[in-house]
C-alpha cells in the first residue's frame, strides 16, 4: 500500500518526460520537466499540437509516457509497481467534453466513486455531494440526468464530481473549450473560487484572461517542449520569446 507518508519537495515533479508515437517519428512530449507545488495554479498554454494536453494527461497516466519520471507526492507513478488507481483517487480530472455518466443522475454521478472506492456510506457520500452541489448552485438538479443540463452546468457538475473524491490536485483539460461563449464565465468562476480556496490546479486552457488573473504560473509549450515557465506577468506583459510572441499575437 502506498499510504505511508513520503517526504517530497514538490507535489508533482516531472523530469524529462517524453511521449513518442510511431517509434519516435512523432514527439508529442520531447523532454518536459516541470515542478508543481501545493496550492499552485499552473496554467498551460500553447498552440494546438504543442503537447499540452498530452502533458496533462500524462500526469495521471491516461497517457503512458515513453520515458521520464513523474513523482506525485514523492512516488514515481510511472513505475510498474505503483497502484495507479489509488493515486488517481487523489488526482481529479475535468475533461473538455465533461464525460458525465449519462445513465446516472447527477447525485449518482457524484457518489459512485466515493461509495465504491472510498467506502463511504450512501448517506455520507450524498451529504458531501449535496454540500458541493450547493457551492456550485446546482442543488436543485441533484435528481436530474446529465442530458437535462446545459453545457456550463455539466462542466460545473464534472468539477464537483472530481471534488467528491477530495483530491490533492485537480487537472483541467480545456474545461471551457466545448462551451457556448455565454457559459464560459460560470465555469471559470467555479475554478476561481477553487483556486482562492487553495486547491492545487493544473489547467490547460485557451482562456488567457483566466491565466493572467488566476494563474500563479504560466507554462508555454510548443512542439512538445516547455518554452517558458514563469509568472503570468512575465509571460503576458513582456514576452521575451519569439514563438511565445507569435502565439500571443494570434490568441489575444
Amino acid at each position, binding site marked *: 500500500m502506498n499510504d505511508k507518508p513520503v517526504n517530497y519537495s514538490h507535489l508533482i515533479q516531472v523530469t524529462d518526460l517524453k511521449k513518442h508515437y510511431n517509434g519516435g517519428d512523432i514527439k508529442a512530449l520531447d523532454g518536459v520537466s516541470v515542478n508543481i507545488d501545493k496550492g499552485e495554479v499552473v496554467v498551460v498554454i500553447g498552440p494546438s499540437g504543442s503537447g499540452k494536453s498530452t502533458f496533462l494527461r500524462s500526469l*495521471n497516466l*491516461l497517457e*503512458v509516457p515513453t520515458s521520464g519520471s513523474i513523482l506525485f507526492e514523492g512516488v514515481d507513478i510511472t513505475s*510498474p509497481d505503483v497502484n495507479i*488507481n*489509488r493515486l*488517481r*483517487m487523489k*488526482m*481529479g*480530472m475535468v*475533461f473538455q*467534453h465533461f*464525460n*458525465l*455518466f*449519462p*445513465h446516472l443522475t447527477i447525485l449518482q454521478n457524484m457518489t*459512485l*466513486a466515493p461509495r*465504491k*472506492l472510498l467506502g463511504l456510506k450512501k448517506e455520507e457520500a450524498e451529504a458531501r455531494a449535496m454540500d458541493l452541489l450547493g457551492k456550485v448552485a446546482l442543488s436543485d438538479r441533484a435528481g436530474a*440526468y446529465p*442530458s*437535462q443540463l446545459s453545457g456550463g452546468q455539466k462542466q460545473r457538475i464534472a468539477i464537483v*464530481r*472530481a471534488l467528491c*473524491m477530495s483530491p490533492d490536485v485537480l*487537472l483541467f483539460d480545456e474545461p471551457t473549450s466545448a462551451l457556448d461563449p455565454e457559459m464560459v464565465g460560470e465555469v471559470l468562476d467555479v475554478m476561481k473560487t477553487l483556486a482562492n480556496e487553495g486547491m492545487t490546479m493544473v489547467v490547460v486552457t485557451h482562456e488567457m484572461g483566466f491565466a493572467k488573473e488566476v494563474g500563479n504560473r504560466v507554462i508555454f509549450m510548443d512542439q512538445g517542449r516547455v518554452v517558458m515557465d514563469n509568472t503570468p506577468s512575465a509571460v503576458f506583459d513582456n514576452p521575451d520569446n519569439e514563438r511565445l510572441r507569435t502565439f500571443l499575437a494570434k490568441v489575444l
Partner: protein
Amino acid sequence: MTLGFMAALPDWLVNWWTDLKDQFILNFIKDDRYRYILKGLGVTLEVTFFAVLLGIAIGVIVAIIRSTHDKLVTDMRAGIARFILNILNALVKLYLTVIRGTPVVVQLMIAYFVIFSSSKNKILVAILAFGINSGAYVAEIIRSGIMSIDNGQFEAGRSLGFNYVQTMIYIIIPQAFKNVLPALANEFIVLLKETSVSGYIGLEDMTKGGDIIRSRTYSAFMPLLAVALIYLVIVVFFSRLVSMLERRLRNSER
C-alpha cells in the same frame, strides 16, 4: 336451433367446418396428442432459457476479452499480463470463427454424437450447444456496444480511480447494454426459433412434437400450423416485453 342455423349455411361451408373439427380432434384430442406439443413447448422454453443465460455469460466474457485486447494491448508493457491477454484473445477469436462459420445444426450434432456421445441427457447437450453457439453472436453484439461508448466515459471512470474491471461494470457495460438491447432481443428471438432443429438429435421439442403428430395422423396442416402459431405468439409477446423495457430505460435519461 343450432341445427337450423347449420342448415341455413351452404353445403361446402358445413363440410369444411366438419372436416376441420374432425382434423382437430384427430390431431390434438385423440390419444391426448396435444401433449406432444405441450411437452415439446416446455422443452423448447427450457432449452431456450438456459441457452440464453449461457449465451449471455459466454458473450459478456468473450466481449470483455476482445474489447480489452483491442483497447489496451498497444499500451501495455511487455509482460505476463500482455502475454495472457494475447493468448486469450487468440482463443476467443478461434471460438468466434468456428462457431459463426458453421451451421448450428452441425454444431448440435457434433455436440451430441461426437463430443458428448456418452451422454443421454439430450436437453443438457442442446442447452450447451445452443448456448455456446449463441454466445458467439452475443459476444459480437456486446463488443460492438462496448466499442460504441465514447472513450471519454472510460477515461472519466479511470481518472476517478476505478480500475479497468470496475469501469467496465459500473460505467461502460450499463450504457453498452442499453445500446444493444434491440440487437440482443433479436438474437434471443433467433435462438428460440433455432432450437426447432433439436429434432436432429431426437430431442422432443415443440417442432418435433408437431412432427410426431404428423407422422401418426398423416395430416400436416393442423400440427405444423399450431406449432408455428405458438412460436409466433411467444415471439410477439417477447418483442412487446423488450420494447417496454427499452422505453423504460430510455425514460430514465430524460
